[in-house]
């Protein structure tokens, strides 16, 4: 425990964790006490009972944060900074012995030999029946049946103790002895001076857990870890040797060879016979593996492995508790080159890392893929003018565009000067403009939404008032609207391009349909008596539309805008994931390809907060503009 509080971040996270636990306990006790004193209201289902209760909000927030800290193993890292490194060494031993352990009923239910016999017997039984099939003549039936019988005998030979060759037995005994030796080494817990020096060096030079890539550094930084690390290579070698041991006596090999030629002799001419030959061959290849041993032949290896495991557990000591309690939902695995976190430690990024990554991304000079998340950039006015003014304006200026002369200069004339302005090719001052992934996404939503409102609301009002317009446009809108926007995306992005145009058009389609329907509902819902009143007050058709029907439809229109924002936001992110080079969805898609869970979570949180912001703005707008809603 002396290695607690290695880094300031660790101290902070540990303190935060404890503070959160205290907060949770305090808020819960406080809430319980309040609940006990507030028993004056005896009505179950009274909605007033759900009001207030901010201490429960505190409990809820504390619980979420605690769960995050706990399941992301951030708490484990703060309290036990070396645990991952030590568990990495243990994992090295575990992955070394897996080829051996998996042959025995430790984690499996059956001994591998039993399993193989079971499987092969079933297959042989099927072949035995198929050999008697009527596609073969009687002579073939007999020949094939005999071959199946020989395979069965060969398989049974493997399980007979008498057929175990002395060489194989010696090899197995050797394996057991070597495992025992490694076990003794682990049990003795002694390290060479070289190993101790390596530990010292790793302590000083190697980055801590999560401080660099790979996440869990490989070289042992504690003596306990070094002991595990020291026997891992030896165990890997033993496992390789064990896998190479086969139950193959000379007599067995001779029979395999004889069977092989007998099966080959069946020939390929006759299709059914050829098929059966292939099956027999497959069966022979399985049996000649020699992976089945007589009962008892592997007992010594099994015993040695069991001993190794119990010594391993004993040596792990407190690591057993840390592993199962502080690092829930997964474990440290050792791969070919490095150790890594698996389970929730992997896909749930640690809060402290997430904040650090966010701060890195938020720095406009770094951003993501050289584009900041959100920033202010100086942009020349000329560029914007060039974007807004269409280039073809210059075509209408009299004269011809100048051509370059022999000395390479180009004489400007009025036409080319107009073209320069239309393309934004003139000196101008710069103004600050927001930029970045987040801004791109927001602008796409706002532009698509704006266009949707601009075209959707008038059409919707018209459809609410005119039978012709309703009948004519209804089929069009009702046919494209039920299609999920993303189903349109591939087509739209192909037609309009994967950059802004395609996405804005897609969002326009989404917003347009919603706005048409809500404006139409609003217009249809206007009380006839209000229209009558306006008529007899002398209003013209246009004035009635502008002063009665439009304001009367405002609640529906604003609700439509609120729904549109939500749907557009969802569609946009999905569209950005499909294609493009900027936007929050793009960031998440790249992060997904790189399995960068921190950035994935950051984009999720950004998306959630922006969606919430949009909705809060709309709620505020609704409260301000239509306080009379539902009070007419």
């Amino acid at each position, binding site marked *: 425990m002396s290695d607690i509080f290695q880094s300031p971040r660790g101290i902070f996270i540990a303190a935060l964790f404890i503070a959160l636990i205290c907060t949770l306990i305090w808020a819960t006790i406080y809430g319980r006490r309040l609940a006990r004193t507030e028993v004056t209201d005896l009505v179950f289902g009274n909605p007033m009972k759900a009001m207030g209760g901010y201490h429960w909000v505190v409990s809820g927030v504390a619980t979420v944060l605690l769960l995050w800290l706990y399941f992301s193993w951030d708490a484990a890292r703060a309290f036990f900074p070396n645990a991952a490194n030590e568990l990495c060494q243990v994992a090295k031993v575990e992955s070394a012995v897996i080829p051996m352990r998996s042959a025995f009923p430790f984690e499996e239910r059956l001994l591998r030999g039993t399993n193989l016999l079971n499987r092969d017997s079933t297959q042989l039984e099927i072949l035995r029946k198929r050999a008697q099939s009527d596609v073969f003549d009687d002579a073939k039936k007999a020949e094939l049946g005999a071959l199946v019988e020989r395979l069965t005998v060969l398989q049974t030979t493997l399980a007979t103790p008498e057929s175990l060759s002395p060489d194989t037995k010696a090899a197995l005994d050797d394996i057991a002895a070597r495992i025992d030796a490694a076990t003794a080494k682990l049990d003795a817990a002694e390290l060479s001076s070289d190993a101790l020096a390596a530990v010292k060096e790793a302590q000083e030079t190697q980055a801590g857990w999560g401080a660099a890539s790979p996440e869990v550094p490989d070289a042992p930084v504690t003596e306990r870890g070094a002991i595990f690390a020291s026997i891992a290579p030896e165990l890997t070698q033993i496992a390789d040797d064990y896998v190479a041991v086969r139950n193959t006596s000379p007599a067995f090999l001779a029979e395999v060879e004889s069977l092989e030629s007998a099966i080959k002799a069946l020939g390929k001419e006759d299709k059914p016979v050829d098929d059966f030959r292939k099956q027999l061959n497959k069966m022979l290849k399985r049996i000649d593996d020699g992976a089945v041993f007589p009962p008892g032949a592997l007992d010594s290896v099994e015993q040695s492995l069991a001993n190794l495991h119990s010594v391993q557990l004993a040596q792990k000591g407190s690591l057993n508790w840390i592993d199962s309690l502080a690092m829930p939902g997964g474990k440290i695995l050792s791969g070919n080159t490095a150790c890594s976190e698996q389970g929730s430690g992997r896909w749930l990024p640690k809060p402290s890392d997430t904040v650090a990554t966010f701060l890195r991304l938020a720095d406009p000079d770094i951003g993501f893929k050289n584009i900041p998340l959100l920033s202010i950039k100086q942009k020349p006015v000329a560029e914007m003018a060039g974007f807004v003014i269409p280039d073809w304006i210059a075509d209408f200026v009299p004269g011809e565009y100048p051509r370059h002369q022999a000395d390479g200069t180009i004489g400007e004339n009025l036409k080319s000067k107009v073209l320069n302005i239309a393309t934004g090719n003139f000196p101008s001052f710069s103004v600050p403009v927001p930029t970045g992934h987040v801004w791109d996404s927001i602008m796409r939503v706002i532009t698509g939404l704006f266009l949707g409102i601009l075209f959707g609301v008038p059409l919707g009002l018209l459809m609410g008032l005119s039978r012709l317009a309703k009948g004519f446009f209804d089929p069009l809108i009702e046919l494209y609207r039920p299609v999920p926007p993303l189903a349109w995306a591939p087509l739209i992005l192909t037609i309009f391009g994967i950059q802004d145009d395609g996405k804005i058009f897609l969002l326009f389609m989404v917003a347009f349909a919603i706005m048409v329907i809500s404006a139409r509902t609003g217009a249809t819902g206007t009380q006839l008596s209000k229209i009558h009143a*306006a*008529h007899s007050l002398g209003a013209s058709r246009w004035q009635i539309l502008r002063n009665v029907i439009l304001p009367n439809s405002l609640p529906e229109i604003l609700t439509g805008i609120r729904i549109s924002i939500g749907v557009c936001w969802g569609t946009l992110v999905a569209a950005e994931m499909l294609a493009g080079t900027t936007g929050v969805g793009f960031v998440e898609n790249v992060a997904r390809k790189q399995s960068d869970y921190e950035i994935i979570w950051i984009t999720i949180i950004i998306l959630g907060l922006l969606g919430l912001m949009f909705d809060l703005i709309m709620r505020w707008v609704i409260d301000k503009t239509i306080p009379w809603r539902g009070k007419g």
Partner: protein
Amino acid sequence: MSDLIAEHIDMTFTMPSGEQVHALKDVSFTLKEGELLSVLGPSGCGKTTLLNLIAGFLRPTGGRLELNGAEVDGPGVERGMVFQQGALFEWLTVAENVDFGLRMKKSPKAENQRKVEEWLDIVGLQGFGDTPTYQLSGGMQQRVALARCLINDPDVILMDEPLGALDALTREKMQSLVLKIWKETGKTIMIITHSVEEALLLGERLFVMAPRPGRLHKEYNLPFAEWGLTQDLRDVKKHDEFSRVREEILGMIWNMEEEIMGKTA
């Protein structure tokens, strides 16, 4: 000259099912300038249809409607209307509701404001100009509706059960207000109502209509509106003559309703 003349008005509705409903049959009357007319009748006798025809929301299928010597064709400012629920524009303030008609005419703002204040004064809503209409009580809303209609200076004021949704006390105050406005402005006013008492109080002339098809059944010339200008309305109601006419009309309408029930049963 500004008389409202109805000649043999016929109105038949064709339902979506193809069924023909004869709402009004051969209705003829002349309403002279400055007259106060109330129309009474059992439900379904075509009172509201008649009002909608005069307002210009409907075109009669037969006969002719004339105001100021010109045929009625479509809604117009000269025929102001007050609706049962007020039909106020709840997104506008009281003042904006009242000067709605003036704004539609694009008359000068300063003059509008002066007129609005004048009319708010008359209907007893001084100082409520900036209040949103949805914050007003039912009676106050109806006062706004009155002012909104009157500010346009219409020749005829059509009222479609304007006081139907009010409580008894407010109703009586509003009845006095209608009488006061009638007297001070000298407008022609036509009121449709369900209440026999109200019809008696607010009608120099009173039409009782009969249903199926809707037609004028009987016409009365009554003194009570004149009395109401000088006396308390409750005193008017206590008068023997008032009670007698009331009972007579109630009996008439009762019989009509009975007849309808008998027909349908």
